[in-house]
């Protein structure tokens, strides 16, 4: 799934996984809750959440609680799992991780989740960056999830390839090269052309992620703030699309398969020199480098710059379904797991970037060097990249539009099957009509 994060080839066991989980999810739960009675809480997460140690810690502090944890390989499969169980009306865990990409769809049925205001959401609301907390509020003012992480985007780049192309390669100079605080897509593509001219190789991995970043940066994305679909006739979006199509035409896209990158070989063989990197993507890059046979010497680095300014991609929430037998204890667990102190530990384990202010400050302060990324202080850089991020309203079909409406025409541009931006845009509109408008 292009939009949902942490997807890999090794992991596409969609249907089977969902059905298997359905079966296990139906298992009966512990007895009714009261006082010191033994309670079993189930929790479903996905991708790399880094919670294993925290579960143990929580069980130790609360001897009456046993945590039954389940982790689904990818966000896309987790979505199928959650949707299937909502449709079935049973089987959801006591705590469920929800990804920002499909939050819009969840908001359609937000009454299937417990209002966390009843369990003290108000008391901790100042923990989070304000936009993250606001994202979790449904149209009726109910809070349906505690934020775990966010996805501020920086730029992954390969220093060795930059050097070979005669470009500066240290983090500060690269940030400067791309325009520093005024970095724009124009500048990014311009440097890309320089790079292409010098090496004959592509500049970025594939166009889907770039487009995703471009759209996420806009004040309003595929939907207006009022929830109206706003693609056809959206001049701003069209201009960005043309800009991207131009860059593809100049050969800047490596046309790699997203989430797979040739089983990581794309990161090692110099097929592309840069990639847009939300915090959690660093984990994907790490995994790909390892499976592709690369290491710290491959030359990847992380720069404190992003074309077009601050942007966020993804991030998750912990929600408590209304079907939970122990909503109070479940909410308590979700609250504890998303507490700044625990978020710092989670970030250390999983490499993602926390959504609470205190945890972010801690990461910025520590500035722990990340060995794989040329010792870049990735936590501190992400904290800097998180500044100025504005949450965008996500409509019910946001991830569908990203993946199934804009995915195919962008792939066509990448492969060269479609040459002109006009044609590709028309394909997107046609798909939008077929899949969303007339669905």
């Amino acid at each position, binding site marked *: 799934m292009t939009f949902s994060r942490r997807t890999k080839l090794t992991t596409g066991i969609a249907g089977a996984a969902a059905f298997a989980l359905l079966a296990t999810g139906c298992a009966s739960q512990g007895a009714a809750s009261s006082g010191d009675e033994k309670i079993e809480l189930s929790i479903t997460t996905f991708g790399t959440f880094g919670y294993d140690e925290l579960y143990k810690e929580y069980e130790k502090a609360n001897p009456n609680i046993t945590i039954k944890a389940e982790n689904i390989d990818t966000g896309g499969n987790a979505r199928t799992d959650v949707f299937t169980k909502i449709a079935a009306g049973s089987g959801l865990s006591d705590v469920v991780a929800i990804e920002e990409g499909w939050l819009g769809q969840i908001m359609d049925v937000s009454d299937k989740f417990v209002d966390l205001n009843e369990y003290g959401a108000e008391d901790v609301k100042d923990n989070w960056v304000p936009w993250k907390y606001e994202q979790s509020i449904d149209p009726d003012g109910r809070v349906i999830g505690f934020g775990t992480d966010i996805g501020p985007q920086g730029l992954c780049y390969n220093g060795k390839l930059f050097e070979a192309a005669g470009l500066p390669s240290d983090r500060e100079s690269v940030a400067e090269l791309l325009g520093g605080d005024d970095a724009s897509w124009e500048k990014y593509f311009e440097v890309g052309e320089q790079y292409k001219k010098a090496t004959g190789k592509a500049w970025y991995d594939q166009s889907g992620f770039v487009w995703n970043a471009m759209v996420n940066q806009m004040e309003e994305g595929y939907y207006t703030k009022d929830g109206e679909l706003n693609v056809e006739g959206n001049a701003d979006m069209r201009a960005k699309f043309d800009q991207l199509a131009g860059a593809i035409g100049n050969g800047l896209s490596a046309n790699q398969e997203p*989430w797979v990158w040739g089983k990581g070989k794309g990161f090692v063989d110099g097929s592309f020199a840069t990639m847009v990197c939300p915090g959690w993507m660093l984990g994907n890059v790490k995994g790909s480098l390892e499976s592709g046979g690369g290491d710290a010497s491959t030359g990847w680095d992380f720069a404190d710059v992003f074309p077009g300014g601050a942007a966020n991609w993804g991030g998750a929430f912990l929600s408590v379904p209304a079907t939970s037998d122990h909503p109070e204890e479940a909410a308590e667990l979700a609250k504890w797991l998303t507490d700044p102190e625990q978020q710092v530990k989670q970030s250390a384990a999983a490499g993602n970037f926390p959504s609470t202010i205190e945890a972010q400050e801690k990461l910025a302060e520590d500035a722990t060097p990340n060995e794989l990324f040329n010792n870049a202080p990735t936590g501190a850089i992400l904290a800097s990249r998180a500044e100025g991020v504005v949450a965008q309203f996500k409509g019910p079909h946001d991830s569908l539009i990203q993946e199934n409406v804009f995915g195919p025409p962008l792939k066509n541009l990448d492969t060269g099957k479609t040459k002109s931006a006009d044609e590709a845009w028309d394909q997107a509109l046609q798909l939008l009509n077929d899949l969303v408008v007339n669905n």
Partner: protein
Amino acid sequence: MTSTLNRPPVENSSPGTPRTTAKAPISLKHRLSAFDHKASPYFYVAPFFILFAIVGLFPLIYTFVVSLYEWHTLKGQGDFVGLANFTAVLGDRYFWNSLFNTVSIFFLSTIPQLIAAVIIAAVLDQNLRAKTFWRMSILLPYVVTPVAVAMIFSNVFGENYGLINNILVSFGIDPIMWQNETLPSHIAIATMVNWRWTGYNALILLAAMQSVPRDIHESAALDGAGATRRFFSITLPSIRPTMIFVIITATIGGLQIFTEPRLFDPVTAGGSQRQFQTTVLYLWEMAFFRQNFGKASAIAWLLFLLIVIFGLINFLLSRSIATAEGRGAKARSQRRLLRMRQRQARDGVRAGTAASVLSETVPVPGPADSPEPSASTEEGSTR
């Protein structure tokens, strides 16, 4: 004590009563046994039918009910729309695209697969050394889960880093776009299916071949029939019921392909341009991406009908192929018989009988092979 004292008088009391007193227990027994006789077979077969009703019939009917409504995956039941979902699906170009892909992959997989399975089974049917080893090894791919198969084959068929394209490029040939082009992607998926299922089908066919009586083969061999002749005239017709079974299960499986195309490109539902999106995959996209359960159910029903139609066609085809084979053989043997009789008749002419005029002139108009003239000669000669 009391019972032994009391009983005899009851028996002796009157000759008429034993009937009635005896009737009560016997009739109950009778009724029970009659009930047992009539009902217990139904109880014995009931588990299957109850299970079928729960996991087969109910979902089938429920799916149909869902398909008559506007039904959002998450929000649930909406308005009743009658057959609108069906007409919408039938007018949906992606549905037809998925049908085309399904049928194309079906043909690319089922036909070569069955031919290969028959040949492999015929080879294994011979007297080989280490029989069990060969038989087990053809079944091995079937043991591997489709997920693993798909992962291995997507390495082989990768576009940028795949095994085949690496070899092609090293010979200076253009790499094949296994995932982005329609026909290559269908071939790649059909290969996965074939790899997994050929051995399984071969084993079933082998079992059928083993049950063909050896003496038929032997007598045919004595009559001078070669191996090929025996295969087509004895083996194939004898395994016809099994062939029908294999063809029908292969049809059902082939039209329901999901795992292989799903995992061939784990990021999209059947390729970025839907170039290998099968109908089941489209159904899945409809239900879980587009959240339209109503339409997804309509697709499921249309697919069900399609499979029934394909199954029927295949059933009729495989029946008629096998019977045509039998008919041909019969016709040939009849013709041979006739020719023999003609020769006898001619011998008779040379012997100088009055029938000579008739039997010599008749064969001239048509070739000896055509049945009608020879039939008339038969009549003539027998008279």
